[in-house]
């Protein structure tokens, strides 16, 4: 569409300012950003959470979230000014000429209608196609997105297809009216690596073959390297750097960009000698109702070392943690702590046994009681397990806050909502440490955090382990994190252990086939990686 009008930019944003309201005040979210997008070009927007990348993505459609306002600048889409455009004008553009793909397809589809019904709604409404044409076109798009059974899948409801398929169906739906611009807002962030790979290559092929311009918002550098022609780095609402993908990957100019690039290089120091197992899981099987979720698992967690448990969602890695904690009593097998068998149910365990095993949760938001102050949250285990009085408790809380690199005077009386994501996760760590445990289960502790922040957490955990001789069970789906922090690795799939051993044994050849698939699916910081990994599907544009 419109290949001949390459001279004029499709989207031109000049000096855009967006402000958001907190209470009575307007605070800047975007502080004067310029952006130019030509037809058929893919721009990667990258930055930490709060950098304003989603806000900028929405502004490109002339849209702003509730409680936000445009405070200056212009957004021109094909010559039409959008910040002051009427609702009708913007609505007319949306879906027919500009489309949006959200992070969570599951939350964006209406669960009450079939995929096809939702897909054909806009093309028919906009008069682009008749219903029959739109349905035929949908099947063609489903095929192009490499969805299984393209003729049939459109007649399913959203809950009947997997997350990765739903995300592809959403992209197909965005393509329905052949828009000139598509905004992708972290479309693969919630997916497993192997699924992410399929979705990424499907999106890229479709965008290329239709010549659609796109803005791809993500926090993952390796992903943006595959998808974008040009990358724009945002920090606190301002452009840090903008350059063609290959140039920026080869030679980032700004310090902030360099620091983003360097994050993946963190490595915990190697540990010498294999300690005796502190926690041993022996032939444990567990089930939710009658559905088996763990099958005959045997894993030793060696003292003073980090054992990473890796696998996709549904592989049973979090369930294994629940079985160890006694939240999901095993059907057979047992768990030993320092050679002593633990009761199956946590209710039957002694306070001392409970104290030695602590958990750090994935979502710090739900792991900390929003109505308790930091001092109470960290102080409670000290009171509860060690029977400390108020003064000893407060002294210990202060010590712990210093240990997790937060100023006690400033943070002890705050509520969790007054902290950033990384700080909340640090409080979660301090609460676990407060019990003076020997074994800590870290359940995806970094997966909800930005890379820079996550790296800080990994460094902190490594330091604390060395200081206190802690043993970690580190649950993650991210291979980069495993490489950074693990001593031993356990790979799980469908409730079974498929590979186990030291990091060198598991993550170097010869691989177990599934480990190889996992390793292979992790995007690398090489713009040609996706092309090498999976050649683009060929075929005429629908």
């Amino acid at each position, binding site marked *: 569409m419109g290949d001949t009008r390459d001279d004029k930019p499709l989207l031109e944003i000049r000096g855009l300012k967006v402000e958001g309201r907190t209470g009575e005040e307007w605070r800047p979210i975007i502080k004067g950003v310029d952006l130019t997008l030509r037809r058929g070009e893919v721009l990667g927007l990258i930055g930490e959470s709060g950098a304003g990348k989603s806000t900028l993505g929405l502004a490109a459609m002339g849209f702003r979230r509730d409680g936000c306002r445009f405070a200056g600048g212009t957004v021109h889409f094909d010559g039409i000014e959008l910040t002051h455009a009427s609702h009708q004008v913007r609505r007319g553009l949306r879906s027919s000429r500009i489309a949006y793909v959200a992070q969570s397809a599951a939350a964006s589809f209406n669960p009450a209608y079939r995929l096809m019904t939702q897909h054909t709604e806009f093309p028919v409404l906009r008069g682009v196609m008749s219903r029959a044409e739109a349905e035929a076109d949908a099947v063609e798009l489903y095929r192009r997105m490499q969805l299984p059974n393209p003729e049939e899948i459109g007649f399913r409801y959203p809950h009947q297809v997997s997350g990765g398929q739903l995300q592809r169906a959403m992209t197909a739906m965005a393509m329905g009216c052949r828009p000139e611009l598509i905004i992708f807002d972290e479309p693969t962030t919630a997916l497993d690596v192997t699924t992410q790979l399929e979705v990424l290559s499907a999106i890229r092929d479709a965008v290329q073959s239709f010549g659609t311009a796109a803005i791809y918002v993500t926090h993952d550098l390796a992903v943006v390297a595959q998808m974008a022609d040009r990358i724009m780095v945002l920090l606190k609402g301002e452009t840090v750097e903008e350059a063609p993908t290959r140039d920026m990957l080869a030679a980032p100019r700004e310090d902030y960009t360099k620091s983003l690039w360097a994050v993946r290089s963190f490595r915990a120091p190697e540990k010498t000698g294999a300690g005796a197992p502190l926690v041993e899981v022996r032939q444990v099987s567990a089930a939710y109702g009658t559905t088996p979720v763990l099958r005959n698992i045997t894993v030793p967690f060696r003292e003073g070392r980090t054992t990473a448990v890796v696998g996709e969602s549904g592989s049973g890695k979090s369930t294994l943690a629940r079985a160890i904690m006694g939240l999901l009593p095993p059907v057979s097998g047992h768990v030993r702590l320092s050679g002593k068998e633990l009761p199956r149910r946590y209710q039957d365990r002694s306070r001392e046994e409970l104290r030695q095993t602590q958990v750090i949760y994935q979502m710090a938001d*739900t792991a900390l*009681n929003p109505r308790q102050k930091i001092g109470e949250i960290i102080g409670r*285990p000290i009171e509860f397990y060690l029977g400390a009085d108020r003064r000893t408790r407060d002294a210990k809380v202060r010590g712990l806050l210093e240990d997790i690199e937060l100023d006690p005077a400033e943070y002890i009386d705050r509520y969790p909502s007054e902290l950033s994501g990384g700080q909340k996760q640090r409080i979660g760590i301090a609460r676990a440490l407060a019990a003076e445990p020997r074994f800590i289960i870290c359940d995806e502790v970094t997966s909800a955090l930005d890379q820079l922040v996550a790296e800080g957490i990994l460094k902190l955990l490594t330091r604390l382990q060395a200081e206190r001789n802690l043993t970690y069970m580190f649950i993650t789906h991210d291979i980069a994190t495993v490489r950074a922090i693990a001593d031993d690795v356990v790979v799980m799939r469908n409730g079974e252990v498929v590979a186990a051993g030291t990091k060198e044994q598991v993550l170097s050849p010869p691989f177990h086939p599934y480990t190889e698939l996992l390793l292979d699916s992790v995007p690398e910081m090489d713009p040609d990686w996706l092309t090498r990994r999976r050649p683009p599907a060929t075929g005429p544009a629908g």
Partner: protein
Amino acid sequence: MSRTLRLLRTMPPSALVGATVIVLYVLVAVFAPVIAPYPEREVVGAQYLEWSSEFPLGTDSLGRDMLSRLIYGARNTIAIAFLATTLAFVLGAVLGLLAAVLRGWVDQVLSRIVDVVMAIPGLIFILLLLSVFGTSITTLVLIIAILDSTRVFRLTRAVAFGIVALDYVEAARVRGEGILWVMRREILPNAMPPLVAEYGMRFCFVFLTIAALSFLGLGIQPPAADWGSMVRENATLITFGDITPLLPAAAIAALTVAVNFVVDWMLHLSSGLKE
């Protein structure tokens, strides 16, 4: 303190009006003996006297001063409604939290009992119980509290079910905390906003129930003054174009509206705080 002041400053006009009316009612109820020109139960003049400087709102069917009875009525009706609502909340919230935390048979038994109680039309059930146990203030408060606690139970249970599933509650349980601590410290503070809003609503309903019962002659017993029975006793006056019997009804209506204004604002606040 500064937080309370800031909260008051952000109050919308409707809530401000509501709060003012409630404060006024409470003041009237507390200082009734000081404000009222005549005692509550004393016959001070002829029957059905017109409004005059001596009796600002005239006298009732027995010759008691209307204004004084209206003032004392605030005392009786509000105090009983307050007691019954609070009792209903203590009972319903505790049982609702227990059901959410313990689940299993405790939840099943409690929920089914509540289902049965709620299946019987409220007013008829109260009338039945009152005729069995006799009408006294204590039985009145207890019966209303128990019947109303079923609704509080359902709300608390539903809200707590969502909170029990959160990681911080799991963390407390795996730490080995007792059930009371989990209920009181982890769940209750987070379930408060909807409960507070519901309290205001329930208060209105209890208030109306008492007024209705009094009107039917089964509520607060004469000679104690209360607004419901005052409407009934003097209803005949309406036939003669006198609006006096409507005044206690208006008092009930004004308080109900005022409480709802404040509750609306609280609902808005509690939903806004979640962000």
